[in-house]
């Protein structure tokens, strides 16, 4: 698995290990310092300018596409390889943090090398949309996905979904102990037992939804209620699920799929499970990862092929089976443990709306959560 990831996008020739080591040894010696510097830099320049050879594979024969991906390579690297093999298009991927890549695209301006931006959350796509950096996608692509999971202006489309759930420690609690609504977590019996990650984008989308459903005051009340229960603050979902498994906390507000990833590593006896709230509860808000094509793309056609591939049978099946996410296109079933999307009735909010996000941040700051 690892080898595949590393060879990805790397059809360019690699230099033998020995050269670097020699340079390096020379560098370490006093006299060779300057010399090694020159050599290393010159070699480095050559490597950067080297062009990938055709190499007899179909990949690259149908052009290329440059993707900025906020999604982790371990999650989607294989899917990109599948796309290359299926289409012959050479996909070059720059991986990074979603928000940092969004900032990068904005800083690059008209010279951005990116054709397509694949974001972990809709907010980052909304930021690009606001600066008019994305083109309108054709209806044939947009119509594949429910209106809840795409841009209202048609400039980005969701590719896979994730539900907010309550992860709980199965040694401390059973399904019967758990609340039917996220609103019930303000009950004092949860004091000191809840983990959350207020800086996490998915959590903030949930709070935005809460503001829509319960109103500003309702959302504020809920946040203050949770704060009164001394929640344990985490940096991300993964840490929460681990802490729940370790028994540091009893329950945590997270996205549904982290549990399955950690279970793969920790083994089936990892003592944690996902709890879905009652149907229609705001606590099960569905967030999406999505893609948008840049206005400045020089390979717009290939970029669209990529979007179509992600929303096709192969792409959607990959999300269901490999990343444990929700497929967003009709006809591909989610994993067996998941509550079907139709039964999770989220509120009608625009996931990419930054004005709402700003409001959420302001509320979180005022209440003292951030």
């Amino acid at each position, binding site marked *: 698995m690892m080898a595949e990831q590393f060879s990805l996008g790397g059809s360019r020739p690699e230099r033998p*290990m020995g050269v670097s080591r020699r340079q390096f040894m020379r560098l370490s010696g006093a006299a060779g310092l300057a010399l090694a510097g020159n050599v290393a830099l010159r070699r480095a320049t050559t490597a950067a300018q080297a062009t990938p050879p055709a190499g007899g594979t179909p990949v690259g024969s149908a052009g290329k596409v440059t993707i900025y991906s906020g999604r982790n*390579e371990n999650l989607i690297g294989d899917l990109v390889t599948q796309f290359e093999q299926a289409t012959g298009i050479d996909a070059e991927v720059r991986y990074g943090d979603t928000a940092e890549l969004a900032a990068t695209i904005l800083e690059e301006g008209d010279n951005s090398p990116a054709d397509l931006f694949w974001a972990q959350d809709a907010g980052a796509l909304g930021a690009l949309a606001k600066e008019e950096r994305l083109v309108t996608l054709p209806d044939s692509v947009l119509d594949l996905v429910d209106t809840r999971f795409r841009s209202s202006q048609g400039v980005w489309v969701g590719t896979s979904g994730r539900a907010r759930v309550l992860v709980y420690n199965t040694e401390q609690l059973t399904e019967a102990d758990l609340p039917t609504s996220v609103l019930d977590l303000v009950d004092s019996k949860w004091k000191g037992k809840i983990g959350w990650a207020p800086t996490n984008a998915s959590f903030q989308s949930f709070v935005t939804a809460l503001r829509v459903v319960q109103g500003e005051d309702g959302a504020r009340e809920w946040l203050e209620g949770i704060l009164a229960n001394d929640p344990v603050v985490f940096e991300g979902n*993964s840490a929460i699920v681990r802490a729940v498994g370790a028994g540091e906390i009893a329950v945590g507000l997270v996205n549904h799929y982290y549990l399955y990833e950690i279970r793969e590593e920790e083994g089936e006896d990892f003592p944690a499970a996902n709890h879905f709230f009652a149907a229609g509860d705001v606590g099960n808000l569905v967030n999406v990862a999505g893609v948008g094509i840049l206005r400045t793309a020089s390979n717009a056609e290939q970029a669209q092929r990529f979007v179509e591939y992600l929303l096709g049978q192969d792409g959607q099946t990959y999300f269901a089976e490999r990343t444990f996410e929700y497929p967003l296109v009709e006809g591909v079933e989610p994993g067996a443990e998941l509550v079907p999307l139709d039964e999770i009735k989220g509120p009608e909010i625009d996931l990419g709306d930054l004005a709402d996000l700003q409001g959420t941040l302001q509320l979180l700051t005022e209440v003292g959560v951030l």
Partner: protein
Amino acid sequence: MLTLRPRAARIAVVARPDSSIEAGQRRSAIPRRRSVSRPPWIVLLPALLVAGLTLVPVAYLLIRASEGGSDLWRLLWRERTAQVLINTAILAVTVAAASSAIAVPLAWLTLRTDLPGRRFWATIAPLPLVIPSFVGALTIVAALGPRGFLQEALEGPFGVERLPEIYGFWGAWLTLTLFTYPYVFLSVRAALRGLDPSLEEAARCLGHGAWRTFFLTTLPQLRPAVIAGALLAALYTISDFGVVTLLRYDAFTREIYVQYRASFDRTLAAALALLLVAFAILLLAFEARMRGRAAYHRLGSGAARRARLVPLGVWRYPALAFCLVIVALSLGLPLGVLGYWLIRTLRRDEAPEGLLIAAQHSITVGAAAAAVTTLAALPVALLVVRYRTRIGRWVERVSYAGYGLPGIVVALAFVFIGARYLTPLYQTLPLLIIAYLVRFLPQAVAAARGSLLQVNPRLEEAARNLGRSPFGAIRSVTLPLAWPGIGAGAALVFLTVMKELPITLLLSPTGYKTLATSVWTSAGSGSYGEAAAPALILVLISAIPTLLLAGRHGGQTPRGDE
């Protein structure tokens, strides 16, 4: 006279760092100083060029921040801004102090005493530097967290169900101290090496014991090195994001990241980052006051020989215990946790091919950045040490501009410049190396500066009188003598570039994987076991330069070495 000099320096610490008495004394000691002369263009021009480069991030921040209106100031001057700035200041100062308290004894023990295995300790002591800060923090939490490995170990025999919270100030302080003390260690060790042993011998001859000699003679001589290292540790602390988020300390960088990550507000982020620059300048001014203006080089030709090792006697046991505890916490703990994660997940057959390529890439960028940054640091350090002009002081301060900033800010600055104005270079290795240079230059400058201070300018003058050009004199006399420090600086840059993330992710050629990005990818998808392999290789590779530095004597000069 020999014992007088350090004492003068010591008095200066207590009383008036810039006292005219001391300055007068120095002038009378070295009447024909060249230090007042104008710097030659061969030094000045490259130094100015380097200084210009380091201003790129600040220029970028000014451009971005200027887009904000009056609203910006309202947002900036919130009570919260002041609060997190104070939090960061407290953390920076305490981390710097604790790092020094660890590093000075460690450097002295490994270089000047008969501590068993001192070369081994010296080799591994700088290695914590290479552990990416978020990985270090992850392992600390895994080991020392409320329900971590330590708690598990204690639960059986002692029934401890929960350890006190590691999160917050103490956890962040401990973690940052453990991963930044090598800055002070390397700097002090280089200075100790360049120290003339005859000073200490004179002190011993005058009847001082080993302890008194250390505190009265050795320590004052090490002052610039300690301060330079402590400054690097402090600046690293204010720029760090990984440790403060994972250990949940409410530091300033978190505010900046919230702007980028949650609000996509580059204007407010830039304004906040400028505050951080201002804070770094404040730290630099403080450092300059602390540093004083004493001279630290020898008067005469000096003795080209080893320093006598101080026999530790029964003190060797506490000394060994000290080394062991520090290394166990800062290196053993993270490596142990990583190793445990690795073994637990070894069930998959993974071809090491990808890791070899990543390792090769890491070494390439690390070595290139170390070489280029060291070359760039030399004119700056020479200008500062040899020609005490106002321009030299400014160039040095400016060179720290990129260092107190979070990596993402420097990365975005070069994205901005690169994509818009240097398009052919954008996302190529040369621009990546330049960005590293801007980010890590102070490490090389501080190291070179410390060593150059110990080289008597008269030696250079002698070379000039014998017919060498200014450049020739520097090359054939000054640089070989200052090599231990310069080499330590190059090693520092190598280690820190190897672990660097934000700049590497945004500015490297597309698809160019390094060990650090491999660690990040695996940890980011929650696969800690998979992250362990590249992290362990990272540490192994980093051992090579520190091994060479610990084992070799600086260049051809057998001065005052073990």
